[in-house]
């Protein structure tokens, strides 16, 4: 009775994706190599910024609150650049999801990329799908231990390298690498590496599709951004059904040696929210009663066997599909062998189904990608990007902020003159020490003396890549308009003594009428 009773919890059934080659697989190799190369190598790129600044091209210097990206240096108060990039990332997600569905999941997501990398290792050590399944089912022997331990050891090496690469983004990479080896690195570096090693090893090696199906919010969020014009990986059921294996077809399938026992797991079929699922219902038609001529699908299960998520794309769009497009490659191979046109499984939009089923011509994929909604997203995305670029290029070299001290707004001195105080911050964004000359410019006829605390010559030295704060006093002579009026305008000029560049900030002077 127990095996008949319902189980409320399901153990993970391992998935053994078969190797596949083809157009999309090549594309994915390319993206894998490029993204991994960017991740592992970026911290090692050097960029000369002068003697007082780090020479690492990309550096997130949390301790000194600086972000370096090649020739760009971001201070904390310029965080709007990062905010702008995040807005672009958000809009980019809208754009790509509306146009190409879950293309992020299928090609660029670290979970996908590292799982792919781990699968390569697994395949290299243990063999392809059938060999791995046999090994999995066999009893623990010396050979099984050797193969499994070799696989895990290589995974662990990759995981350590992954965790190790992360910390290099936050401090000088060569120094940290040396310290890591000599055990002089800070404890947080080792902790971070250990944590990321553990997550990479477990997520890439053992959890894989579980991360996508049960841990990741993306599939749920992205479903809300797709519409009937969005390209997704889909099965042309109107062309493939009724699937089946006539004698001739079975021979063809067996000659390809791609059939086999269905040992690999099937992820639970979770339909995409809001998407009408037509194919599931079709499968319910018992084969014998179907009087239609046989479709192109020979039910060879090639699409299922190559799927890293362990799903059957012929069940229709579903939550577990990351649109990695490997089933397209697999099916195209079979279609070639059986002499049918490619594209039984293909990038198709939902709106294509009824038209193609009725005999209409397929619409080229690019026509789906280029439509008003996506053009609008792209326009907004580019506008934000251009605005950021513009802001980056007009960024001033000297920056000064002037904060009038308002507690109290003014001070009456013994001789009756009126004094205002200002907190002035001077930013030196250069790699060398700079001196700044400060001078007030008043309304016509106004008279006031400026004094900078600690700097009698009105010249404030600011060390390289720092900010200096000085208190500036402005004193209006007794009885003058400036001393008695409620408020007068004041402009502070600052001049970089090295470059001669000037900038100004407007503020007010509060008189005793205030």
């Amino acid at each position, binding site marked *: *009775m127990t095996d*008949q*009773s*319902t*189980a*409320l*919890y*399901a*153990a*993970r059934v391992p998935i053994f994706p078969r190797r596949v080659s083809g157009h999309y697989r090549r594309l994915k190799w390319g993206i894998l190599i490029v993204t991994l190369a960017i991740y592992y190598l970026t911290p090692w790129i050097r960029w000369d910024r002068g003697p007082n600044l780090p020479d690492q091209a990309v550096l997130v210097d949390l301790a000194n609150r600086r972000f370096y990206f090649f020739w760009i240096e971001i201070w904390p108060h310029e965080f709007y650049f990062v905010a702008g990039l995040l807005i672009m990332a958000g809009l980019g997600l809208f754009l790509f999801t509306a146009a190409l569905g879950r293309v992020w999941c299928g090609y660029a997501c670290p979970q996908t990329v590292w799982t792919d990398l781990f699968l390569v290792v697994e395949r290299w050590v243990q063999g392809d799908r059938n060999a791995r399944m046999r090994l999995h089912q066999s009893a623990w022997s010396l050979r099984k231990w050797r193969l499994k331990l070799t696989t895990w050891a290589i995974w662990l090496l990759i995981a350590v390298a992954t965790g190790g690469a992360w910390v290099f983004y936050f401090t000088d990479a060569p120094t940290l690498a040396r310290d890591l080896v000599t055990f002089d690195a800070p404890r947080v570096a080792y902790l971070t590496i250990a944590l990321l090693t553990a997550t990479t090893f477990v997520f890439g090696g053992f*959890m894989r599709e*579980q991360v996508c199906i*049960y841990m990741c919010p993306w599939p749920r969020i992205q479903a809300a951004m797709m519409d009937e014009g969005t390209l997704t990986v889909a099965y042309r059921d109107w062309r493939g059904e009724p699937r089946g294996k006539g004698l001739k077809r079975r021979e063809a399938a067996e000659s390809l040696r791609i059939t086999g026992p269905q040992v690999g797991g099937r992820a*639970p*079929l*979770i339909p995409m929210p809001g998407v009408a699922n037509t194919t*599931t219902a079709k*499968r*319910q038609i018992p084969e014998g009663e179907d009087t239609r001529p046989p479709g192109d699908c020979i039910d060879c299960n090639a699409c299922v066997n190559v799927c890293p998520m362990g799903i059957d794309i012929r069940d229709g769009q579903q939550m577990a599909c990351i649109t990695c497009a490997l089933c397209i490659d697999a099916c195209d191979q079979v279609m070639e062998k059986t002499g049918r046109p490619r594209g039984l499984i293909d990038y198709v939009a939902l709106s294509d189904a009824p038209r193609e089923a009725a005999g209409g011509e397929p619409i080229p994929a690019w026509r789906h990608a280029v439509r008003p909604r996506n053009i609008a997203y792209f326009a907004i995305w580019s506008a934000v990007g251009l605005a950021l670029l513009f802001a980056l290029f007009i960024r001033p070299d000297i920056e000064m902020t002037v904060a009038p*001290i308002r*507690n*109290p707004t003014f*001070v*009456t*001195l*013994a*001789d*009756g003159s009126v*004094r205002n*105080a200002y907190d002035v911050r001077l930013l030196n964004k250069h790699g060398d020490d700079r001196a700044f000359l400060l001078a007030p410019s008043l309304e016509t006829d106004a008279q006031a003396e400026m004094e900078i*605390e600690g700097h*009698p010559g009105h010249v404030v030295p600011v060390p390289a890549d720092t900010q200096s704060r000085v*208190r500036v*006093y402005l004193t209006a002579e*007794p009885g003058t308009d400036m001393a008695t009026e409620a408020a007068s305008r004041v402009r502070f000029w600052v001049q970089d003594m090295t470059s001669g560049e000037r900038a100004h900030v407007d503020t007010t002077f509060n008189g005793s009428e205030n």
Partner: protein
Amino acid sequence: MTKRRIDPVTGTETTGHQWDGIEELNNPLPRWWLWTFYATILFSVIYVILYPAWPLASRATEGVLGWTARNDVAREIAEVDASQAQMREALVTTDLSALDRNEPLLAFATNAGAAVFRTHCSQCHGSGAAGAPGYPNLLDDEWLWGGMIEDIAYTVRHGIRNEADPEARWSQMPGFGDMLSRDEIATLVAHVQALPGGQDPLAGPGGALFESNCAACHGADARGERTMGAPNLTDAIWLYGNSDEQLTDVIANGPFGVMPPWGGRLREAEVRAVAAYVHGLGGGEAPVADGTE
């Protein structure tokens, strides 16, 4: 009851639960979720044993580690305090008048003094040190008892006109209400109001009254006397205001502003730090001989 049943519409197994013919589908949770759930339960049990957890009537269970947030704060304060010991020592032994030549020590004293000021001084002198009627403005360049850094430190240490410290600065302006007539006080008020404008203190209708009653402390030139805390009457700054009512009140009743001594309540380093902070607010006086600025 628990026989497997497949829902014909979705092809999904059901749990066997039925409500009015509506069946519950069974999409089994991954087992590792269940184990994760058990792990969190185990975590909470260990946490409850180690850390404060169960609220009781007046306090919570203590936990075997004996951890409290208060202890953490106390430890951090002690650490900071210990790390500043050297600076405090230097501040206590340094010559205050030379403090402005020791930049790191001056920065330390100014920052520490700002904290002391906000805690102990701002109640009377205001958070911006601008004072209030009867409580001097510490930003301007007029000082009742002296504006050099040692003068300020002494005032902070011993206070003014208090009984608690025998070395407190002391003076008392008498109330002239019993000694002078209303007309005489009115004459004096008008006389004093005219002093900043250049009125000769000893001339005019109030000159004689000023000479016999006020000049002893405020000086024949009315420029005040710092040893007695007698203010300069010729400048633009009025501690109690310069309206008719305010000056009449001051002359008739005699002001008696008290400042408590801080020497016993603050450490010497804190007294010196707050003196450095006040001295640096814009009105501090430097020794005349030191002509470096």
